[in-house]
């Protein structure tokens, strides 16, 4: 991991780390629950028209796909940019800007054949030079996702329709690294100088970026799109931060779609015929981390005591009202990479013993940093506080705004915090940056050389089963050491107007309106 992003500490860095599985790796993937007509047989006719209005909870920080780490930005960019390959709803990689690819026998050379007849929204032709430019921009400027190219030695364009990626070591996660999410988008050669990419967007996707204002973003259908052109005329994203307000807007017909659904409403919405509800288990996970640079949190027994002291089921229920699954590792059940391992059960007696054996004077004071950007952390924290009060740990809940929260996290100025990682598909994304000693997202100072070793081997192991075995071992060590105290995998919950067709809810929360048709 020589190359790491220098964009740490940016808003939303913890909010998004999207990595996808390598091709054919993920057989899991729960079927997507779409009421009525599911699936993506795109609207060829284009006759229906109309503008889809989507309510999202947060405002994108910027629109440069290579720099932003905010989920809100990717909700918009998903519809504007393309990547070489793209995960389908099951997490398997399908052709996008690349139509096919081959791997050399030693696994070190990947050759991609590019799609012909693709144009950018500014009218310029798409070719291999754009790919080389985009990837080199990420690598050379050490942008947020540079670490995904850590094993990439060289990106070459032998002819306009071919790109060759040369690796320094086998990288089974390469497809997920270059196509897992729109952070690896292809931009036109020279775009960074020609355009202000933070406020403009020039992609090859189904929608063009029209305008951005304080209240939202407007996209228009791109008539020369290489795939089936969208049947709707455009998409308008509106920012509605209050979940109840978003739901009211959906009910009253002011918006067609929202992902800002209050968890407590999920149950009642299932029977609500004014609203279609789509849910599917996500690939996100939420966790608590203790600062291992500080006593007594550096003590493994103490952390294990805390792990035994927390009633995960109650925390999960408090935070998500049933729209989540308790888990003691990061990777959800539906994934191929899931490893069933649950060493901790709620056991206050054992927790008290472990915490006392750790030698700190009880009650131990522990600040728990939460943020109102994610209200579920505040609700979960209150349950954790009550749980730990029984085992000799006095939790002080510290509610910060997210900016301050991120600052304190990156400076190590905290005892413990709770947050989630969103959108991971490949185990590399789930474990590597968070748990290796020098990991770029290892804000809690965890260091176990054995884990480093296992994760290092797993990153280059090309045999899928052998790779899984390595990750399983690493996951057990990480859970046993309580590097992260994993809590739950939430469900993706989205809602839309009855009659909206062609939209599918995805585990990786990619939001694509390409084949959507509006209700009459």
């Amino acid at each position, binding site marked *: 991991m020589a190359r790491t992003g220098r964009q740490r500490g940016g808003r939303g860095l913890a909010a998004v780390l999207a990595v996808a599985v390598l091709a054919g790796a993920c057989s899991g993937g729960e079927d997507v629950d779409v009421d009525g007509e599911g699936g993506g047989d795109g609207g060829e006719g284009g006759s229906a028209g109309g503008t889809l209005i989507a309510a999202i909870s947060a405002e994108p920080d910027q629109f440069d796909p290579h720099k932003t780490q905010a989920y809100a930005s990717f909700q918009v960019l998903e519809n504007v940019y393309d990547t070489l390959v793209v995960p389908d709803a099951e997490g398997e990689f399908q052709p996008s800007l690349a139509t096919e690819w081959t791997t050399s026998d030693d696994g070190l050379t990947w050759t991609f054949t590019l799609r012909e007849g693709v144009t950018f929204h500014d009218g310029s032709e798409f070719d291999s030079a754009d790919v080389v430019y985009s990837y080199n921009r990420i690598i050379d400027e050490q942008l947020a996702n540079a670490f995904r190219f850590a094993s990439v030695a060289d990106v070459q364009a032998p002819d306009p329709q071919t790109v060759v990626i040369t690796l320094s070591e086998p990288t089974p996660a390469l497809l997920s690294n270059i196509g897992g999410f729109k952070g690896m988008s292809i931009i036109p050669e020279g775009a960074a100088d020609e355009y202000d990419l933070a406020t403009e967007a020039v992609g090859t996707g189904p929608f063009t970026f029209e305008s951005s204002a304080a209240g939202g973003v407007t996209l228009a259908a791109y008539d020369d799109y290489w795939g089936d052109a969208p049947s709707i005329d455009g998409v308008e994203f509106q920012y509605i931060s209050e979940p*109840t307000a978003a739901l009211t807007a959906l009910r009253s017909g002011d918006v067609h779609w929202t992902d800002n659904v*209050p968890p*407590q409403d999920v149950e*009642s919405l299932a029977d609500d015929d004014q609203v279609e509800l789509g849910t599917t288990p996500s690939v996100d996970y939420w966790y608590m981390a203790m600062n291992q640079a500080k006593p007594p949190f550096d003590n493994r027994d103490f952390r294990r005591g805390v792990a035994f002291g927390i009633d995960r089921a109650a925390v999960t229920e*408090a935070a998500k009202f049933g729209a989540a699954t308790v888990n003691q590792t990061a990777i959800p059940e539906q994934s191929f990479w899931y490893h069933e391992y649950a060493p901790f059960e709620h056991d206050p007696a054992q927790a008290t013993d472990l915490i006392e054996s750790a030698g700190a004077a009880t009650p131990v004071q522990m600040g728990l940093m939460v943020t109102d950007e994610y209200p579920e952390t505040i609700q979960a924290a*209150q*349950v954790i506080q009550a749980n730990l009060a029984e085992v000799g740990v006095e939790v002080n*809940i510290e509610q910060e705004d997210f900016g301050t929260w991120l600052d304190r996290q990156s400076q190590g100025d905290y005892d413990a915090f709770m947050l989630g990682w969103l959108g991971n598909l490949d185990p590399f994304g789930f474990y590597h940056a968070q748990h290796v000693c020098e990991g770029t997202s290892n804000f809690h100072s965890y260091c176990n050389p054995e884990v480093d070793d296992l994760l290092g081997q797993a990153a280059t192991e090309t045999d899928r089963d052998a790779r899984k075995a390595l990750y399983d071992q690493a996951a057990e060590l990480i859970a046993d050491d309580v590097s992260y105290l994993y809590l739950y995998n939430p469900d993706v919950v989205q809602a839309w107007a009855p009659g909206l067709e062609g939209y599918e809810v995805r585990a990786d929360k990619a939001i694509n309106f390409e084949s959507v048709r509006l209700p009459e």
Partner: protein
Amino acid sequence: MSIEESAETPPVTRQHRPRWLETLTLLARNPLAIAAVVVLAGLVFAALLAESIVPRDDIFTPDIANRLQAPSGEHWFGTDELGRDVFARVLAGAEVSLRVGAVAVGISLTAGVVVGLLAGYFGRWVDDTLMRVMDVLFAFPALLMAIAVLAILGAGSTNAMIAIGIVYTPIFARITRASVLSVREEVYVRAARSAGAGNVRIIVRHVLPNVTAPIIVQTSISLAFAILSEAALSFVGLGTQPPDPSWGRMLSEGRGFIEQAWWMAVFPGAAIFVTVLAFNVLGDALRDVLDPRQRSAMKGVGA
């Protein structure tokens, strides 16, 4: 000497009943004021005894199995999203609100009165300097100012008290100064000065007692504002931190559940309403009885 004086003094005190007693008597004739006092006494009682009336567990310990229960015999005000008893939390919230209100107003009262006394009494550059500072503070909208202060100090109920205290200081300074300006020209102040009394003695013994009436009225009204401000700050997450019960925070949490559990927002909201109304009514009544002109009219009617 003592014999001579005692012969002379008693008739004076007998002629006029103590002023505070007279004030209370007048106040007691106002039924609204009585109601307000009763409500506030109840709140103080609740605040002091909340934790002995309701079990601590009801206030703090989540009970997920019993979340969002409607009001019933067991839970008078229902339960919240973590299964805690809303009645217990509203009761315990009285303590938070009154404590923040009292400490914050204590800060602004002390600071404001000292500034007002100094500015009004000494005039000239002391007046100019102090009152311009107060004007600057006064120029900011109260809540924005409090949010700015909390942004610097960090969120929390202690800092909220300080922030609210700072915000309401200029009002006390202005009211005090205005009264001092007229009092310092009174004959008895000049008499004291010509008798050789020092500034401190004059301010404390002769000026301060004669400017208390408007300050008392302002204190009651400011308590209402301070409690409202604490609720507002907690509503936006800057005041009282979870899991401590604060009416503002409960209101903010209840907002997301208004369709499933109206009781989560309605009862804390009602508590804020009743408390603020009580302080305002009391403030109004106090103003009526402390204003010299109103007072003579009321005495006339009563007699």
